[in-house]
């Protein structure tokens, strides 16, 4: 459903973008990543292997967030289209609200990034049994927990104060979701040791670790070659 927009991006500028991508990878391999990141250009690369969030900087981090929000929005859209059997009204209402938040996060990043946005991603939820409450909530927990660790882990890479604050405005909402989903699975597990460390800090994760997980749910693989991660 999303292939048109990918094609439009991969049209005229494809040759130049591909060059930048491979140049970027080559330079990174030679240990001169800093040189590559000095460029003001922002190559968002598409290929038949997927897309890359581009040169280091705020646009890359915003596109990273946009990719994750696309994934979450698509997941909850499917949850509400095909709710698990016997879903209670209150759970349907809560999951519908989360869907609406994730769609707005997605639309916000799309609007904020404008022409710099990565294309719409094609998802692959074939591993999730949406008819099962346990499977659906388990996947929801994975998405929410991963989202929180992603924002917490990438905050320091953001250079603009306004962008950093907006990331904070979103991550706390993701954490609210995460706590709710955890409580729906196991009451009282809203800040359990699988997500919160011995100092009561939420876990955080690198772009590479997050994209590895995200890509298991994406047909359009997302890479961050300038942040040490290229999709397999």
């Amino acid at each position, binding site marked *: 459903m999303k292939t048109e927009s990918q094609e439009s991006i991969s049209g005229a500028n494809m040759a130049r973008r591909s060059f930048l991508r491979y140049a970027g990878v080559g330079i990174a391999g030679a240990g001169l990543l800093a040189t590559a990141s000095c460029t003001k250009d922002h190559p968002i690369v598409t290929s038949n292997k997927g897309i890359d969030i581009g040169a280091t900087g705020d646009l890359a981090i915003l596109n990273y967030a946009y990719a994750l929000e696309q994934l979450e929005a698509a997941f909850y859209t499917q949850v509400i289209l095909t709710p698990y059997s016997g879903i209670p009204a209150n759970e349907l209402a809560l999951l519908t609200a989360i869907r609406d938040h994730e769609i707005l996060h997605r639309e916000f990043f799309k609007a904020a990034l404008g022409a710099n946005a990565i294309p719409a991603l094609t998802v692959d939820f074939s591993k999730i049994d949406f008819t099962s409450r346990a499977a659906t909530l388990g996947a929801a927990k994975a998405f929410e927990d991963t989202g929180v660790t992603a924002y917490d882990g990438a905050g320091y890479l953001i250079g603009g104060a306004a962008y950093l604050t907006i990331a904070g405005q979103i991550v706390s909402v993701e954490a609210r979701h995460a*706590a709710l989903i955890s409580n729906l699975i196991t009451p009282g597990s809203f800040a359990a040791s699988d997500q919160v460390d011995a100092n009561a800090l939420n876990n955080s994760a690198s772009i590479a670790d997050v994209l590895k997980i995200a890509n298991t749910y994406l047909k359009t693989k997302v890479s961050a070659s300038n942040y040490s991660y290229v999709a397999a």
Partner: protein
Amino acid sequence: MNLFNILEEIEKFDPELGDRLNPRRAAIKNITSFGSKVALAAAPFALGTMLKKAYGATTPPTVVEILNYALTLEFLEGKFYANAVDKSGFIPASIHPYYQTIADDEAKHIEFLIAVIKSLGATPVTSPTFDFSAGGGTGTGPLGNTLYNDLGTFQKVAVAFEDTGVRAYKGQAANILANKSSVTPALYQTVLTAALSIHAVEARHASATRQLVGLTPWIISTTAKGNDTGVALVDGNYDGEQNTVQGGVDVTTLKSASGSTTSVAIATAAFDEILTMDQVLKLLVGTFIVA
């Protein structure tokens, strides 16, 4: 996160780091042992000093000032929950574990922040005096003696504290960023990530405390009012949550699952809002915190 090792490593390479973070340290180092004792008594950022700074001048606050501010808020939350979970028979067994988890987390945040501040060569603030009647020390504030005698009151104040805590941490992210050029990249990453990570745990707490009183886990504001808790006393704690403009984009104009625009309810729930240090201290000092 192994913060302490990171900080120790940084200090080995950059022994003056602590001085840049907290210029007072340099002054303390060069005085005699008699002087040291005086300095130790005077140097701690007593709350009054911190308040003066927060209300008054330095923009942005230093990393240490931000950490001490966070510590002050954690002292308040920690005491607030400890009083409740330790009072026999007050919180029913069915929900006691929720509040015990939160109380334990706040205690860990206190220990963590104290350790970080010390590792920077600075002095952690000591706990302020609290007035849980919200009377600023009179003991006869609007809550009277209900907080630990009426479960509903306690639970609603818990919601307000958590939602306020989330806003308070969020408000300091940009201030930590403003200190980026004066600290090492490793220290910057560590402090910002720690602040964001505590912030996320406070949001988990906020979600849980809201669920326990039958509120949605997220704040649903109206155009007219940020506060969705139904407790007018905490209107100020939620003021601003009704904002729908993010990064210059009015997000109610963006499409939603149901159409070409987004409701104010969804728009306000999907984005939490900040409170500045001044705003938070004005809400808490003279009410729960005795000035």
